C-alpha cells in the first residue's frame, strides 16, 4: 500500500522504494505520537507528505496534469529544508499535537485535487468539517494561484 502510494505520486519505482523506507523510518521515529486508529490512513498521509517533500526538493518536471498539480501543491511550503518540513509536517500535522486543527493542508489538497476525493471524504479522512476542508482548500488554491502567477507553466 505504501509503495503503491509512493509510486503513484513519484512515478519512479526507485524513488518510490526509497520514499517508502523513509515513511517507515518517520513512523518509527515518531511512534510515541502515533494514534492506533486507522493505520492505513496514517500510512497514506505520511507517504503523501514524504513524497511531496521529495518532489519539492527535486523540483522535477511534470509529466502530466496530476504531476503538475502535485508539484504545485508540493511548492506550497517551499523555502524550507526537506528535513525540517518533514519533521514539522509529521509532528504538527499528522500526529497528536497541541493544535488538533493543524491538519495537513497539502495532504488535503492532494486528496481532493489529485486523488479525486469529495469534500466529505476528505473531511472524514482529515478529521475536519467540510467547511474546514473548504477553508484549507481555499488557502491551498490561493497559494497555487500565486505560484501559477509567479512561475509560468
Amino acid at each position: 500500500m505504501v509503495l503503491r502510494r509512493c509510486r503513484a505520486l513519484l512515478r519512479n519505482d526507485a524513488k518510490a522504494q526509497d520514499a517508502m523506507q523513509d515513511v517507515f523510518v518517520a513512523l518509527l521515529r515518531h511512534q510515541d505520537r502515533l494514534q492506533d486508529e486507522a493505520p492505513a490512513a496514517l500510512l497514506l498521509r505520511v507517504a503523501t507528505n514524504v513524497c511531496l517533500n521529495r518532489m519539492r526538493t527535486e523540483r522535477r518536471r511534470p509529466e502530466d496534469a496530476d504531476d503538475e498539480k502535485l508539484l504545485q501543491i508540493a511548492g506550497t511550503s517551499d523555502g524550507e529544508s526537506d528535513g525540517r518540513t518533514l519533521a514539522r509536517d509529521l509532528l504538527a500535522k499528522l500526529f497528536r499535537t497541541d493544535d488538533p486543527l493543524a491538519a495537513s493542508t497539502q495532504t488535503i489538497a492532494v486528496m481532493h485535487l489529485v486523488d479525486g476525493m469529495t469534500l466529505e471524504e476528505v473531511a472524514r479522512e482529515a478529521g475536519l468539517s467540510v467547511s474546514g476542508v473548504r477553508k484549507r482548500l481555499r488557502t491551498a488554491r490561493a497559494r497555487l494561484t500565486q505560484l501559477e502567477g509567479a512561475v509560468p507553466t
Partner: protein
Amino acid sequence: MSSAHDEASKKVPAWLLERAAQGELAASQVDELKARLAAQGRSLEIELAALAASSQQIHSQVDKDRTLAEIRRRAARPAETPSHRRSLNLFIAPLALAGSLGIGLLMLRPGHGGAPSHQGAPIVQAQPTGSEPAEYVGWKGDKPLPSPRLWVYRQRTVANQEQPERLSDGARAARGDLLQLAYAAGRDGRYGVLLSIDGAGRVTQHLPEPGASVAATLRSSNEIHLPTAYELDDAPGFERFVLITSTQPFPVASALDAARSLARQGSSARTAPLPLSSDFHQTSVLLQKTSKGTP
C-alpha cells in the same frame, strides 16, 4: 484548475480503496465507494482483488530483508537522533497491517522476528519466529542456558562500520550511547518483564510493549534481541537494566511497582533486588554513567 478538478473528482480514489482493503472504512463509506465504482461499471470486489494481486507482486519484487535492514539503519542513524532519551522500538501499530503494505513489514513487529537494529552484528542469524514476542537471534554453537540472562549491547562505530559491543555489568556508558537489549529466558524463565531504572529515579519498560498488562512470553532459546535501540539520556549516575522472570504469568504492574519502589531508594537501586517474592528470578546489568563519551 476547476475543469481539471472536475475531471479528477470523477476518479475513484485509490486512497479509499486502500483503506477499504484494510477494513478501515465504515459501512456507509463502503456503500458510497461501491456506488461510485458502480457508476463507472466497476465493482469493489474486483478492485480489492486487483490490490491484493498488486501486493503479491510487490512482495515478490521487493527484497524484504534488504528493505528492513535499510529502514532500521536509517531509523537508528545516531546523527539524526535527538539528544534526549529515545526508544526506537520497532513495534508500532500501523505496521500491524495485513500484507498489503507492499513489503513484509510485519517482520518489524516483535513476535515476527527480523534482524537486530544494529548493523554488522557478527554471526547473528535470524530464525523463524512464528508468533514469539521478540526477535530471536541465535548465536551459533550456543546451548540453552539454565537460568535467565540479560545482555546490553552498545552500538559503536569502528572504521566507519557499526558494530555491537557487549557491555559487562558495571561498564561505563554515557548520554547518547545507543543500546540494544538481549535476553535468554533459560529453562525456567517462561514469562518476563524487562525494565530499566536510572539515576533520576525513572523506570522504563522495555518488554513487553508499554500498555501490555501481562508479562511477555519468553522463548526458551539462547539469545533474543529486542527489536529496539535505546538511547541513553542525561540521567545521572547509572542506568540499570533488570530482567524479571517467572514460570507463571504475572502482571507487568507488579514488576513496575517494585522497580519504582526500588528507584525511590536512591543508591540502593544500583544493586539491590527488586522487592519481589522468591517466585521471581531477577538478573540485571548496571551501567555507570559518565559525563564524557564512551571510552
